[in-house]
């Protein structure tokens, strides 16, 4: 595949799965400017790794792995918290009507997700996005039984905290 073809294929797949990018960025970064920065960082990593994508797993599974790995590293970098970011007029990831149209319970859900550690954030995000336990296990690198146990714990935690 030539570079322009590869770029076109990449852009097409990214366009198809842009919601993953949005949801991962929104869950790992509260600051709007930094979120755009994170979205770009994930995209760069996706493009760099695209040549290695062999289609053995679904594109969404592969994209989740990269997006979550980059987001966790981004989240953990100390400098991010103090870095000065200049706001730009144009954004990489534009969302119409955000945040005014976000329902109250979704705002509460994002707050709950924000309070979780980076690994459990990934877990709940994958669960909410209707991924099977098998897919969640493949993205996280844990067993399906482990996924089930953790989800059950998260359900209880949510019930207790948001009662």
């Amino acid at each position, binding site marked *: 595949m030539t570079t322009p073809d590869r770029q076109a294929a990449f*852009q097409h797949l990214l366009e198809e799965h842009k*919601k993953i990018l949005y949801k991962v960025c929104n869950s790992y970064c509260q600051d709007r400017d930094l979120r755009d920065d994170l979205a770009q960082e994930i995209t760069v990593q996706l493009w760099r790794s695209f040549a*290695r994508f062999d289609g053995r797993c679904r594109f969404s599974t592969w994209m989740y*792995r990269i997006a979550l*790995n980059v987001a966790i590293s981004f989240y953990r970098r100390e400098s991010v918290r103090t870095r000065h970011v200049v706001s730009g007029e144009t954004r990489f990831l534009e969302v119409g009507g955000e945040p005014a149209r976000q329902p109250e319970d979704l705002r509460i859900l994002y707050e709950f997700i924000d309070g979780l550690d980076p690994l459990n954030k990934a877990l709940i995000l994958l669960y909410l996005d*209707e991924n099977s336990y098998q897919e969640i296990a493949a993205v996280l690198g844990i067993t399906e039984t482990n996924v089930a146990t*953790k989800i059950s714990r998260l*359900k209880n935690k949510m019930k207790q905290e948001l*009662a």
Partner: protein
Amino acid sequence: MELDVVKEKWAEHDRKLDLSIRLNRQILMAANRRRLRSPVLRFAFFVGLGGLLGLTGCVILGQFIYRHWAEPRFALAAVVLDVWVIATVAAAVRQMAMAMAVDYGQPITAIQKQLESLRLLRIRIIQWALLTGQVVWWIPFLIVALKGFWGADAYQVFGETFLLANLAVGLAMIPLAIWAVRRFAGQLAGYNLNQAADFLATVSDFENE
């Protein structure tokens, strides 16, 4: 609030997102061109640059050793410095290889452990470089630099007693430094080392629970 109830709202929100998200293609292309934005790649680049500088140092020191092979008092000091530089170059190569091997398309627990191990290795290398460097980069460096740049004999300028006394103190510091690294590794590297070790433990727990 129940997770499964919110899941339905999430799905509804998800459908709306399809229509409302737009990716700016110009920024997308520009971002893809900026390959060094990837922190791991940037890290590998700077470690590689350090390694390259180290290799240059090795060549310069090698020439010095060759020229002064018949004068052990100069050659020996250069050999000590060269061993230190070679060790730091080897460490840089190892770090660079580890950084380049990170494949973000692998499962999260595996990659996060790999990244954190790299971070721990980097911290430990810096600790060792600082602790041994304080010995190497004083008397041996003084002897080599004076001879190499100005042709001066440090043994005559400062007197052999001064140099030998300083060297002896420096050598006596090595076992102390090794003990200190082993005993106070966490405290010496401070928050970063403890944080890296903690996260590594968190990932392992998450994986094995």
